[in-house]
């Protein structure tokens, strides 16, 4: 029996009005399970044009469906069923016929709840200058992505080794990558799994209807209320590696008869976890949306969402500290305040996003859409700040045994007795010693109490990055002929982001003085130079006393403007598809300093030099331009463009071959372009666009439960710039490394395969990502300190950035020595390549999956990761660091200093089990339990960074590195999800 559902009422009414021209085209078919080829009853079949749902129906008991009265045209047919992965196929209705799609098979869904981005954003890299941002792969139809997408997230796998900025993330057709940094913006909708579940995504170089993208895939979250799965959904989730509980409620109306659609999604995440002490979640996320359909062919959607609350954060530490604490997950950010646990580093956010989207199909050959998107609110991050008092961090290097004693005399750290005292303080794990191993809040308060006039010595600051981001995206899809489609669009962005810090807590004191304490040490004789706000000082005669909530330190706007046109033509001829796309755009940005810093006074409003007590404060750079902190910087402009070609051929039997190639000329981001954005308007010179060439070649096949994908990829990136700001203990300030001319090459293969096993419902999947992601240029570095006008190094070559030499060793009198040639030069055996850090270059998984007809599922998942590398500090790759104080770089020094650390490989075993029950076909409840890292492997390093300080040897002839800091993956963890839907 065929269940016929007549589309939506609106369409029906409209159809009645034009009864005479009632279209006669349609689509029919049967939906079955891919595993058992059994019919799926109650699956929803929707025919879409763009994001608009033209018609829909549900399948009958035998899985069949029929949609009639369709106008001629190309539709995207979306098939959804509870417990199965959503599937999309393109259907062409022509000549008024009912098109028979025969059987359409659906892949059973991974019932394990997808984690949200929380697992990525917890790491605190803020003071390290190194970035750690997620790439999340979505594409439920792809066998590789299915296994690697979330499965590899716990080792912070970066797809093809690409930085997260290269992944284009869209929302309702608007590119959402952060305007200032380029990072992917997942945290904006973190927790809103239901509202953001409907998404379209591409992998690698593929383009999409809503844009052309780069070389690391595109994802568009539909976001509109009508795209949220209709019905009520509730879930309770508890897990031991992120946050304790998540409660989620969701309601979506679907498109109602009156032409309205509503959706609400609320989620609450709270508590800490079993692995990292001192972290917590307290986040409320909400989504509210309403959509109205006007007539047949247009709709207007308005929705808003935010993720608000606060979250305690973890910081990396050195292996020495981890070993003494007996815990690789030790977190130095917390301590007891009058017996109550308190984390100093808390991320506080409220960044609501509001979207107005209009879409229309004025003819069956044309879809149009326009989206206006606004993002505002605040993003704050607390940390300790202090003035003229000891560094409060428990793992400050002077608190560690290694500061007092090293086995190697050449470190000149000889006091073993003193090291013993420090060691005892770190290794006695009783309550009395907690204040040595964690923050001592009580002591900080007491210092502030002791301060004569209430001037706080320790405060908690809150660094803000507050965005005002307005976007407009217009796009058109023109189905010109049966064979040719043209997608095109226009994107514009106006962004103003304010960076500043304010006092979050005076910790028992009554004010904090707005001066630069490092400048105070260097320029004791000139008080004006120590001012963070010179204008205030000059008009009041003293520095401002900052109270709670007051801004201090730095305050500036990043202004960004972007505009872009894009077009992509797709030509289909039989089994052959070709597409050609191009973009052209313009980007500009500038800094607007809101306070005048004493060290970088610049000129006053009348263009005169600024003086204090007869001394000129204004200073000039090497080109004779005044170095300014206040007012507008130069406005560099960049012409951006890109081109993409894609060819695909479908061989008989469903074998698909495709080839993609592209060239991209992208502007640097604001965050990469200033030598010291907190303090001055000076741009990195030699600022230029980043050029990328990329190509991939793919083979795909699926059928009868089998699925295969093979991909080879190659990408060359040229002329990247980067800015790393690293907190330096000795300077008590941020040190900035501005790098230009970074080139990198990404090359490798991706393999994914799935095979059904003889037992009904049992299947085996395997994926492998094998890559080499390396640097291949000698970049140049300019090093500055926030609190000094001096440029420490300018345009210094990073000789050992892309590789470092390994010298040949020979046996000489029973010991291994470096071989020397006839000229007396050491013989280089080979050059060791340096790699893009913090991602395994080798990642593989084998997954055994079993599903029963009674909705049980079991999965066992073995993963292997190797060739992951530590983030490199640029300073260590200079001749300065390799040379030591005597300036002579010996082979031993170069090998020691420049080599990049490789992490040990890791094997992980994960398992999950779940079941769902259906009651009266209407109610569905179930659970899933996911156990990760069942072997409880606690030695898996997922990232880290090198510090930027050097220890001069006893003989003053070489430098030693400070110990690197690492992040580890948590040991065995569980995630239990209970859900109820109707």
């Amino acid at each position: 029996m065929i269940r016929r559902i007549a589309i939506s009422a609106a369409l029906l009414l409209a159809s009645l009005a034009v009864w005479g021209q009632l279209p006669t085209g349609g689509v029919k078919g049967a939906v079955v399970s891919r595993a058992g080829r059994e019919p799926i009853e109650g699956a929803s079949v929707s025919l879409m044009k763009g994001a608009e749902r033209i018609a829909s129906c549900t399948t009958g008991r035998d899985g069949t469906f029929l949609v009639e009265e369709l106008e001629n045209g190309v539709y995207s047919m979306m098939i959804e069923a509870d417990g199965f992965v959503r599937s999309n196929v393109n259907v062409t209705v022509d000549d008024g016929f009912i098109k028979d799609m025969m059987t359409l098979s659906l892949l059973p869904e991974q019932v394990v709840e997808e984690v949200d981005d929380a697992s990525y954003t917890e790491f605190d890299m803020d003071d390290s200058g190194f970035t750690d941002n997620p790439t999340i792969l979505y594409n439920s139809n792809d066998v590789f992505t299915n296994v690697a997408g979330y499965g590899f997230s716990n080792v912070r796998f970066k797809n093809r080794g690409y930085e997260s900025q290269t992944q284009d993330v869209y929302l309702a057709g608007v590119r959402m990558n952060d305007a200032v940094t380029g990072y992917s913006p997942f945290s904006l909708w973190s927790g809103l799994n239901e509202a953001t579940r409907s998404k379209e995504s591409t992998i690698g170089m593929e383009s999409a209807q809503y844009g052309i993208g780069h070389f690391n895939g595109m994802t568009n979250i539909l976001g509109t209320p009508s795209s949220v799965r209709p019905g009520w959904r509730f879930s309770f989730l508890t897990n031991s590696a992120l946050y304790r509980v998540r409660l989620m409620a969701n309601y979506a109306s679907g498109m109602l008869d009156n032409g309205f659609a509503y959706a609400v999604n609320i989620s609450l995440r709270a508590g800490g976890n079993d692995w990292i002490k001192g972290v917590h979640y307290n986040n409320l996320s909400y989504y509210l949306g309403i959509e109205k359909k006007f007539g047949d062919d247009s709709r207007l959607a308005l929705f808003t969402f935010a993720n608000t609350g606060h979250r305690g954060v973890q910081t990396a530490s050195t292996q020495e500290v981890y070993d003494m604490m007996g815990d690789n997950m030790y977190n130095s950010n917390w301590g007891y305040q009058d017996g109550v646990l308190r984390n100093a580093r808390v991320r506080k956010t409220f960044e609501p996003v509001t979207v107005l989207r209009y879409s229309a199909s004025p003819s069956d050959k044309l879809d149009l859409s326009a989206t206006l998107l606004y993002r505002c609110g605040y993003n704050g991050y607390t940390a300790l700040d202090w003035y003229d008092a000891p560094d409060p961090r428990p793992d400050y290097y002077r608190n560690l045994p290694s500061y007092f004693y090293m086995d190697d005399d050449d470190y000149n750290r000889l006091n073993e007795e003193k090291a013993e005292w420090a060691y005892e303080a770190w290794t006695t794990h009783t309550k009395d010693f907690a204040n040595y191993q964690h923050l001592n809040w009580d002591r900080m308060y007491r210092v502030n109490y002791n301060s004569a006039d209430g001037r706080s010595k320790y405060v908690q600051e809150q660094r803000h990055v507050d965005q005002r981001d307005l976007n407009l995206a217009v796009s058109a899809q023109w189905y010109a002929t049966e064979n040719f489609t043209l997608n095109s669009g226009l994107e514009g962005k106006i962004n103003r982001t304010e960076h500043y810090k304010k006092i979050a807590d005076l910790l028992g004191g009554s004010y904090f003085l707005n001066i630069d304490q490092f400048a105070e040490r260097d320029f004791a004789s000139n008080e004006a130079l120590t001012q963070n706000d010179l204008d205030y000082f000059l008009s009041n005669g003293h520095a401002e006393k900052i109270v709670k909530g007051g801004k201090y330190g730095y305050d500036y706007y990043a202004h960004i403007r972007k505009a872009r046109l894009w077009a992509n033509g797709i030509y289909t001829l039989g089994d052959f598809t070709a597409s050609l796309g191009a973009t052209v755009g313009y980007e500009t940005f500038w800094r607007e300093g809101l306070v005048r810093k004493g060290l970088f006074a610049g000129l006053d409003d009348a263009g005169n030099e600024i003086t204090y007590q007869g001394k000129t404060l204004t200073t000039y750079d090497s080109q004779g331009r005044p170095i300014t902190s206040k007012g507008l910087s130069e406005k560099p402009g960049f012409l951006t463009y890109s081109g993409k070609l894609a060819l695909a051929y479908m061989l008989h039997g469903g074998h698909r071959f495709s080839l993609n190639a592209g060239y991209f000329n992208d502007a640097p981001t604001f965050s990469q372009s200033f030598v010291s954005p907190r303090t001055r308007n000076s741009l990195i010179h030699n600022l230029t666009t980043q050029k990328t060439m990329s190509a991939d070649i793919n083979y795909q096949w699926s059928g009868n439960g089998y699925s295969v994908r093979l991909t080879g990829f190659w990408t060359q990136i040229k002329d990247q710039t980067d800015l790393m700001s690293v907190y330096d203990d000795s300077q008590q300030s941020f040190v900035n490394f501005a790098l230009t001319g970074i080139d990198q090459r990404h090359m490798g293969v991706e393999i994914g395969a799935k095979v059904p096993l003889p037992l009904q419902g049992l299947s085996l999947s395997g994926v492998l990502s094998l890559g080499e992601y390396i640097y291949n240029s000698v970049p140049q570095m300019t090093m500055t300190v926030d609190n000094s006008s001096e440029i420490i190094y300018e345009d210094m070559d990073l000789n050992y950035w892309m590789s470092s030499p390994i010298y040949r060793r020979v046996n000489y009198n029973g010991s291994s020595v470096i071989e020397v040639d006839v000229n007396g030069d050491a013989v280089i055996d080979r050059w060791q390549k340096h790699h893009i850090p913090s991602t395994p270059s080798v990642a593989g998984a084998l997954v055994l999956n079993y599903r029963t007809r009674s909705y049980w599922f079991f999965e066992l998942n073995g993963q292997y990761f190797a060739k992951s590398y530590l983030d490199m500090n640029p300073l260590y790759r200079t001749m300065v660091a390799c040379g030591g104080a005597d300036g002579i770089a010996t082979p031993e020094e170069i090998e020691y200093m420049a080599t990049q650390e490789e992490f040990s490989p890791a094997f992980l075993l994960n398992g999950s089990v779940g079941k769902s029950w259906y009651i009266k076909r209407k109610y569905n409840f179930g659970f899933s339990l996911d156990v990760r890292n069942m072997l409880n492997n606690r030695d898996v390093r997922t990232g880290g960074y090198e510090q930027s300080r050097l220890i001069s040897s006893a003989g003053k002839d070489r430098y030693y590195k400070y110990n690197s800091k690492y992040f580890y993956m948590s040991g065995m963890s569980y995630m239990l999800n209970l859900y109820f839907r109707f």
Partner: protein
Amino acid sequence: MKKILSIIALSALMVSCTSLVEEFQPVFTANYPQPAADKSVELEPNITIAALCGMYKTGSPWNIDQDLIIAGKVTTTDKPGNFYKSLYIQDETGGIEIKMGKNGLYNYYPEGTTLYVRCFGLTLGMYGYKSGNYGGQGMVQLGFEDPSGSYETSYLESSYLIDSHIFAGPAGDPAEPAVISESELPSSFDTQKSNPYIGRLVTLKGLKYANQIFCLIYINSNKDKTMSANRIFLSDATWGVTTWAMSESKFKEYLDAGLWDDVKIGNSGNYAYGTVGHPEDPGFATSRADIRANASAYSVSQYFKMGSREIQLRTSGYSKFGDYEIPKSVLDGTATVDMTGILTMYQGSIQFIVNSIDDIVVHE
């Protein structure tokens, strides 16, 4: 009844799950209790400072193996930066430096606070002793052992080490300085044991500027500081230095002004490296620019006369008043100064260290 039982059961569960309570604490309240003020400790001293110093034998640092406790008032502050990482305490018999090894000590131990030192496990040693006719005594100090042999004692530094030996007693008024006359000044071979004013807060009156400074400059402090080619002495004259000391920026100002161009590079009769204006050792410096590249702040000893005795006023280049100009009337000898500070000995000479600029009073 059932309700009560379940409440008890629930609270028992909560108590047993302190970590659960801890992780939800910031969720339910963002407020943290204000910690109470520090409680002061009281110990019974069993030896005076002078007696403790008397137990030191010149040239042999002593790792104290007796349960000795001294008590004294803090007389110095590191707030203006002239004292750094250490403090002085004094009782009626004398004063002694405790090499704490932490910055911002005034935050914990303000002037006038009574400190108790449990000496067992610490090291008593001397800094600044020089033998021979031109030498003399230095200062007996309390610190930790120094296996490197560079000094007789090292800084305590380790927080646990400090907390186990140094105890803050009650706060109090700052110590009254002893006003002493020329005849009460120590001789070259006096120590804290033989002269009660060494290491204590004293006031010297009627001092006259002696038109002489002493300052040791390293061309590159990253290189071996003991090598002659790396050393420049400003001594015997003032070399144009009119500030109490010099910060890094002030150092550059003096250097750039060419005031030191004729100063010889080198020391102890080994001056084969040219002068600051015309250096000849390519390994160390080829120009003023090279010296400038490794500039840093420098301490300066300003020479004064108290009657016939020479007093070196030693001021750190990192102190907040280091770059202050010495009043003209002092420099040209028309004014005298009174100074209050710690009287210390270095190689038999008197080095005087003030806490702040306010401790130098000029009489026109």
